[in-house]
């Protein structure tokens, strides 16, 4: 197992959101976490990424415990988190942002290789390399956030709501780029509102409701599950 989350409780201050959430991801898998608003999807990702300390439970990455490690140490282990808010460096150019993504990579040649890889994936970013991140459109920012997350050649990418607030056409681009990433061997955990599309592209999924894992299984099975169809797909 690449990532094992064992019965974590987590939340903000006194507010507990996750209750005994357990999940597992194998190397090379494309897993999604779906659920209604406020179910705790983002909280789960933030807890794995080390931005929130779990109140109980354990997280293992490549067999080693990473529970309670600060975000920067988790990032160094090879987990890259692309947040919903993107958390770009708004006063830096696109290229500077990307190079910051490779902060843990000290090898200049490797940095350049990763940069070329990202520019290949998102030619749009290459066109805008000199522009300040804070002056870009929402879709471009999203691409930049994903690109920055890829700069450190992560083993596992946690992607939070990549299609949120994007035009349908851009959503396609974002999903396509995740597909390319996955084909290049990166394990991806995706949190999405767009349940139909997400269950189409991923291998496996977890359904989170009220801070608990309600269902787990193959994405194709989940898509035909009566409960999922009723709650998320409205049929």
């Amino acid at each position: 197992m690449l990532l094992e989350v064992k019965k974590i409780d987590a939340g903000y201050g006194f507010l507990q959101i996750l209750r005994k959430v357990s999940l597992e991801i194998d190397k090379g898998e494309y897993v999604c976490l779906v659920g209604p608003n406020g179910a705790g999807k983002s909280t789960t990702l933030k807890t794995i990424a080390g931005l929130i300390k779990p109140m109980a439970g354990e997280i293992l990455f490549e067999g080693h415990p990473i529970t309670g490690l600060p975000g920067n140490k988790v990032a160094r282990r090879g987990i890259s988190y692309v947040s919903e808010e993107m958390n770009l460096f708004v006063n830096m150019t696109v290229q500077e942002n990307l190079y910051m993504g490779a902060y843990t990579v000290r090898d200049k040649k490797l940095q350049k290789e990763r940069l070329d890889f990202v520019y290949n994936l998102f030619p749009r970013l290459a066109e805008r390399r000199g522009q300040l991140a804070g002056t870009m459109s929402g879709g471009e920012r999203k691409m930049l956030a994903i690109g920055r997350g890829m700069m450190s050649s992560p083993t596992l990418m946690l992607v939070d709501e990549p299609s949120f607030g994007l035009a349908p056409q851009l959503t396609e681009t974002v999903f396509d780029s995740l597909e390319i990433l996955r084909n290049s061997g990166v394990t991806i955990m995706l949190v999405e509102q767009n349940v139909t599309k997400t269950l189409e592209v991923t291998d496996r999924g977890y359904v989170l409701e009220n801070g608990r894992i309600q269902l787990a299984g193959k994405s194709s099975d989940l898509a035909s599950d009566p409960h999922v169809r009723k709650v998320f797909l409205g049929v």
Partner: protein
Amino acid sequence: MSNNPTVSAVEWFKSAAGLTISLAVIAALAATIDRGPYILVNTVVTGGMLSLVAMGLALVFGVMNIPMFAHGEYFMIGTLVAYYVFTPMNGYIDQHTGTLAAALLPLVAIIVAGLAGGVMGVLTEKLVFSNLRKRSRENWVMNSFLLTVGLSVVLINLHQLIFGTEFKGIVGYWRGAPLSIMDVFISRDRCMAFVLAAVMVTAFWLFMTYTRTGRAIRAVSQDETGALIVGIDLNGILLLTMSMSCALAAFAGASLLFMYPSYPSVGLEPLYMAWFVVILAGLGNVLGAVVGAFIVALLKVLTVEYIGSGWEFVVPSVLIIIILIFKPSGIFGSEVRGILDK
């Protein structure tokens, strides 16, 4: 956003920053023609040192989000350490005027004082702010502001308790006749103070622009979570920032010991001046603080020259009020919004 240099130059002149800088340059030149070149020289020397203090202030605000009102006390620590390091050397320097040692020993005192400021910065972050950060980040700006005020009171009174209230000053660091620049005689200490400030500002700018750590500091100032995500050791950067900014203030205090003898509240004047600069330039804008320092210095020199020396705080204060009413983000406020606006 134009690629045409002439158009962007015109745009720049029309912006608040361009207008202010142009006006300041014109005012400086006019006053220089009217009263003599010493106006320009005074402005440059005062502005150089002020920029060190203001830069630290801007840095702490931009990166750590702390409105630092104890910054003057690190200036005070600088003067104090420099005094106690330099005084024992004084006799030796008197006997060996003109030797290399006599020229280098004052530098040693100033550098030791700067390092001491850095150590105090580390202690401050470790003992005060990191503890607050662990406890709660709610209402951070207000809480940390109150802490800095308390810290300032504690440090001033510690100085009074341990070292007393008398003036601990020196006649000068460097012996020898004043240098003559543009028909103005300036003491060697003043010249050196400016040179040291220029060296520090340049070194600092290079550090922030070209080094990995400098980029990490800028990244933290723009997005803390983003910095964590890419693997930057946040606590390390915060510690370094506080330490550097305190070291800058102590360095400035030490270089100016010949003008500001050490006493408990010596830091208040540079603190207020630095706050004028930071508000003028825009909170957290480090490079803007350097330019702002020269503008405030000019303002101060002009006020003393034309209105009278009792007014040197009044005029900048009025200006600050006007700026806060009409352009609260400061004259160098950029199109990208700062931390507080979120």
